[in-house]
């Protein structure tokens, strides 16, 4: 994927620094609560479930499924409409927003529950997690990203 500097660039904060540092290495990492084992997202200093403040980062599978999506028909900076914005349910049970790569941005091509896998888009000095539809013969093979 080519760099598109006009796209919105996130600015990491201390509580999210590990997420973005690991993304720069091409890996998806998440914090998990040592006490109740809840995977915490978005990253923050204490567990929102049990309020324990000992969290340990681990490397996530990078695999998930499409739980919901919209196909935006109004251009946003750096994005050519139409494009899909999806809610990805990770195997670890938390959700990330992502674009959908490897599938045409039309309603019939995108199925809820279809498997996706993480990759990283280089953007303005940040590596951004993005999810690509796992080709399994049911999806639009060779569709542009």
């Amino acid at each position: 994927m080519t760099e598109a500097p006009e796209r919105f660039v996130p600015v990491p904060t201390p509580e999210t620094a590990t997420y973005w540092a690991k993304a720069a290495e091409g890996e998806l990492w998440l914090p998990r609560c040592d006490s109740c084992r809840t995977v915490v997202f978005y990253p923050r200093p204490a567990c929102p479930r049990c309020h324990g403040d000992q969290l340990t980062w681990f490397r996530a599978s990078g695999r998930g499924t499409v739980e919901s999506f919209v196909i935006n028909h109004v251009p946003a900076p750096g994005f050519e409409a139409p494009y899909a914005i999806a809610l990805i349910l990770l195997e670890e049970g938390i959700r990330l927003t992502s674009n959908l790569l490897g599938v045409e941005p039309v309603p019939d091509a995108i199925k809820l529950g279809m498997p996706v896998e993480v990759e990283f888009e280089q953007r303005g000095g940040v590596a951004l997690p993005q999810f690509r539809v796992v080709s399994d013969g049911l999806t639009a093979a060779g569709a542009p990203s």
Partner: protein
Amino acid sequence: MSAAGASAPVVIAGAAESPQLGKVPGQSAMMLATSSARLALGQTGLSWADVDGLASTLPTAELASYLGIRPGWLDGTVVGGCSYMLHVRHAAAAIRSGAASVVVVAHGESGRSRVGMAPRAADPSSMAGQFELPYGAAATFSRFTLPALAYLHKYGRSADDLAEVPAAQSEWVEGNPRASRNKRLTIQEILDSRIIAWPFRLLECCPLTDGGGALVVMSAERAADCELAYRPVTVLGGGESCEGPGASFLADPTSFAGFREASARAFEESGLRHRDIDHLMIYDAYAHVPLYGLEDLGFVGRGEAIDFIRSGATRPGGSLPMNTNGGGLLYTHTGMYGMFAIQEAVRQLRGDAFAQVAGVRTSFVQGIGGMFGAAGALVLGAG
């Protein structure tokens, strides 16, 4: 000033919207709030010297100066479009405790013309800025809408079913000259409107407008001494809650904890049950929000909201008239719509609405703030 007492009835004694609504490029946000507040106060027979409390989503110190008052009680709660439900609830508590006696709650927003408004700026270090906005989800129509398909899928509904919401609400707003969209809409007309963020079409997304609205809140005892232009509306209960920084952070993308908890608190405080409610307002920036609302508030079971609306229950003549001003989707949506939902509930309880429902004695008003962020509910009663 004396405390009204912990269980003293509190009323909305004045309520008015700005004279102009929709496209008002000649007025700033402050002017829209001020014109509304002057009209609302005028309905109570009181003067600005009597006002000792001010709540607004505008900077309260500036607004007080603008109005020429120095109130001893300020509430600048800003949790999005439901802020005014919280303001009314806070005002009621302040009046009961003696912290204030006459509170003006004011909204003014130049959402369309952007006159006297801070520039829109997205914070790239906020959680939404780090985890939602980078994906081209820069506008409410591509963020607030994100969970809707999960809801439709869970209950075996089609994307086209969203059209039931504006279709039903259009029956209330047909011919209302103050509404942005005042035509009766067929399902087909809605489905034929252009796609904004599929599954959402243009007529399933709110317009962006300019407007204002204000309320004057006081004890029933104080109101009894005023020369009121309309009969007062009683604040029977309220509730507030919150869940997270954006739609993608919902614990369950098919339900909103803010709706569930704020409404439960409001019901409990009012002592009323669902069957006691004559009229319902559910904040509808986008067509899926009233579906979540009907279910999360407990007016229908899970997955039943679309069939309920399709049955005619929420339309004129139905058992639960809902969004009788046409809602944010059709009437007006300045950005923080909640004030207009309260205004319509007050009009129905006064018997003064454009599409008046006969015999409304109770109204439940449910607001949402941010994108599935905060929630505020009010239960209002006639007299």
